[in-house]
């Protein structure tokens, strides 16, 4: 099973621990806010807005090394624009995985 990891963030940071921590701090701060906005828009059936929210969240999915997760998020982003919702549970699963990784 694919799990979040710091490989890409470490690659970006080189050996710069301060930079690595800056990226992680931003992710930890922004991720819950972005997810909350996404969920609100999704519940209110504002799917175009929700698609834009997924676009923003998927950058964090990518930074946390979730390659399959990124593909799912990209597909879901497109689906939402067409008001298709099949990948919602898969996307929520990715978000939950990240939440556990970041805050536990």
């Amino acid at each position: 099973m694919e799990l979040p990891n710091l490989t890409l963030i470490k690659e970006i940071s080189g050996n710069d621990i301060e930079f690595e921590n800056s990226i992680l701090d931003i992710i930890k701060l922004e991720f819950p806010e972005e997810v909350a906005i996404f969920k609100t828009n999704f519940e209110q059936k504002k799917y175009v807005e929700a698609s834009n929210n997924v676009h923003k969240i998927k950058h964090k999915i990518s930074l946390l090394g979730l390659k399959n997760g990124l593909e799912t998020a990209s597909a879901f982003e497109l689906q939402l624009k067409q008001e298709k919702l099949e990948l919602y549970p898969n996307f929520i699963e990715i978000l939950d995985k990240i939440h556990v990784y970041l805050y536990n």
Partner: protein
Amino acid sequence: MRSLSILLVDDDKIERLKFKKVCQEVDFESNIFEAKDGETALQILKASKTSFDLIISDLNMPRMDGFEFLSFVKKNAEFKNIPFVIISTSNSKIDLDRCYKFGISGYFTKPLKYTEYSKRVTSLLEYWNKASLSARLNT
């Protein structure tokens, strides 16, 4: 090396950090003004006394997206000659064509690998630094 004055427009704080990191790594003395959307970027453009050498912008942003911002800049007599480069995750031909119709000076998609990103940003900075120097020598 002369410093470039750059207006960097991206709603993603991490992307802005990455760009500034490349500038530091290649010892490029850039004067970077940051905006998180097109609306803020416009305010900076209008209020700033700086003459910008380069605008680097994302496309997908809240409030005013990259297309709207680009359209405004290219229709404005004061700003239309500032080179405008898009750095986006979108590899859609429609987006690319739309941007080129507005008269952008470059477009690259954000690669996943940092080394590749760093190379592309470095080339971009070097190119526009030379172009900016030439323009100044010719005036």
